[in-house]
């Protein structure tokens, strides 16, 4: 069986797990490949007007897989931890896919909801595996192998490689960087080379080392995010907030670039939230927000990044002169 796996949204977070899982169960996994101009325009055309950029991108990947595979894997991520949800768009993703005006092969849409506890999750995985084999031991082994693959992937990211490096089979650049930049934002925004206009590569070319939230241990992120009086009830936004707070409070980067997609619901709130908290704490780490959508043009984008990096370099030089 050929399973289509759209290379969008939470793909960047979990793909090694499900890829390995399906392969171990004897299926062939077909990825839709990196986002390109065609995928983006097709997605923006098909998707509901007011949806956010990453979901439009998702539609594009969906369309590019539609006639190539026997089934498409669109998990319904309701929650990945007991105390929080994911974004509502993930809760309704398989339904939105089904409503697309295009002939789609059957959709595999397991509901992943950790609010219901690990027993329910184990049941979900087992049900998913039963589509391929009746052998429970085999399913469990496939899942174990998947978890291992995911751990290896996450360890490589924590060691400094971005998912983009891993996908391209490259090592992150080593050696002295003039600047350290914290790149905050959802993995599907910052690691999508097309919609982010190759931001990571560009920053590296400007001599910066790029750090992302996925490189930080989860307990650090959680501890920082939970300093807020009311816990953020979206897991992935909590991660963004936690990593930004960590960089800002520990001065572990020279500057932060926060990439958000238009018109992301949760991001619209946490942007203001983070700006307020950093101002209140008297943070000296500069942060720039970049909003991307399907109309983003390279020139305007580049100019702002260059100006920000120039400012960080000058600030660093100035600080060095003051302290000597």
């Amino acid at each position: 069986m050929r399973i289509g796996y759209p290379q969008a949204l939470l793909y960047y977070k979990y793909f090694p797990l499900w890829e390995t899982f399906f392969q171990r169960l004897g299926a062939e996994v077909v990825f839709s490949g990196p986002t390109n101009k065609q995928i983006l325009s097709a997605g923006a055309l098909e998707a509901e007007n007011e949806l956010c950029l990453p979901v439009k991108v998702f539609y594009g990947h969906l369309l590019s897989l539609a006639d190539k595979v026997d089934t498409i894997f669109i998990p319904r991520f309701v929650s990945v931890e007991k105390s929080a949800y994911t974004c509502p768009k993930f809760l309704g993703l398989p339904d939105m896919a089904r409503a697309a005006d295009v002939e789609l092969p059957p959709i595999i849409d397991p509901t992943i909801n950790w609010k219901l506890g690990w027993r329910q999750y184990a049941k979900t995985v087992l049900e998913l595996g039963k589509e391929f084999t009746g052998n429970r031991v085999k399913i469990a082994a496939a899942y174990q192998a998947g978890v291992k693959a995911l751990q290896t992937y996450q360890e490589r990211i924590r060691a400094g490689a971005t998912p983009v490096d891993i996908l391209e089979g490259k090592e992150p650049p080593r050696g002295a960087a003039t600047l350290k930049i914290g790149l905050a934002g959802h993995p599907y925004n910052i690691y999508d080379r097309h919609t982010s206009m190759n931001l990571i590569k560009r920053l590296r070319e400007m001599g910066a080392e790029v750090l992302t939230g996925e490189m930080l241990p989860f307990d650090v992120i959680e501890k920082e995010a939970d300093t807020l009086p009311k816990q953020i009830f979206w897991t992935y936004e909590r991660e963004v907030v936690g990593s930004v707070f960590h960089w800002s409070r520990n001065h572990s980067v020279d500057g932060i670039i926060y990439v958000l997609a238009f018109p992301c619901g949760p991001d619209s709130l946490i942007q203001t939230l983070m700006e307020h908290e950093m101002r209140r704490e008297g943070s000296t780490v500069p942060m720039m927000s970049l909003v991307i959508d399907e109309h983003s043009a390279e020139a305007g984008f580049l100019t702002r990044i260059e100006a920000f990096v120039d400012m960080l370099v000058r600030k660093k030089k100035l600080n060095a002169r003051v302290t000597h």
Partner: protein
Amino acid sequence: MLMTFPQMGNLEYLLADILERLDIDYMAPPRTTAKTMALGTKHAPEFSCLPLKLNIGNFIEAMDAGADTLLMAGGKGPCRFGYYAELEERVLRDAGYDFDMLTIEPPTLGIAKFLKPIKRVSGKSTRQIWRVLREGFPKARGFDHLEKMALERRCFELTIGDTTKALKQARSGLARAKTPKEVGDAIEAGVDIIDSVPHDADRPVIKVGLVGEFYIILEPFVNFDIEEWLGHRGVYVSRSVYVTDWIGPSTKNPVAGTSDSALIDLAAPYLGHFVGGEGTASVAHAILYAQEGFDGIVHMFPFTCMPDTIAKAVMPRVSRDYDFPMIHFTIDEQTGKAGVVTRLEAFLDLLVSKRRARQYA
């Protein structure tokens, strides 16, 4: 201490009544206007949803008039509404205001957590608060019932504007009622007032259901008073959301008349999981109106609203399966009345011709 709260439809009556019973000084903010909108959009995050912007505008206008304590509801997601209070507090402090924020978390997150802030400001015991809520709620429900009655009668009135006048009179009678007996009498009197509006119940009418995000549906300023607009054109309007259904502790939605579990079952083939806010309800009510033989629905929600954007994305399937016309309005601070009205007129024309086609077939 002078407490205030955001404006939203007839929510003002409910809160005023409960705060009075709790002996808390309060002032309702001025009704939402273009000025509220300007203040809100100036301070609120750029692509936050319209209700958040208007809440902020309401609070600023109330604080400029002397209020110093802001009453707001909390929540647990995944809709953004649950984080509104946190955001509003920060935005308003950044704007230089000094105030006390009173966030009431839903009782589903723990009764103690729900009662604590109310106890703090009112100095009342759990028992007293319970009594106030038990006596105040039927009155609030009364307002909703009167509103519903006016909504369903308006299209039959002989003189345009009579029903709205009668509703106003019925409401002010109920607002004065205090004891359970007075409330009961006032509701009955209100029903009689609306009932006595001269009308022609046999007049053929187009039937339209109003679904979508609660704030947009409930607040006439942002929906351009669509209920009256439709009613005055002889359109029978049914609404899926009422204030007390929305904040009510039961899941039966007595005013609108459906239960949450029935809605979930109805929406399931199109939306297999809740998505927060009114996502499921919008889809389910659309189906319900189709099954009840309505001519079409009007779906309204704020621009960038996550749950209802998902609902909109799946609703074309409902429309196809039930051969049921729908029109969607995404509302933000840029939305102009003329554009909405033009589209509504075209939509009504379509409904009329569709019904004629069916009659001749």
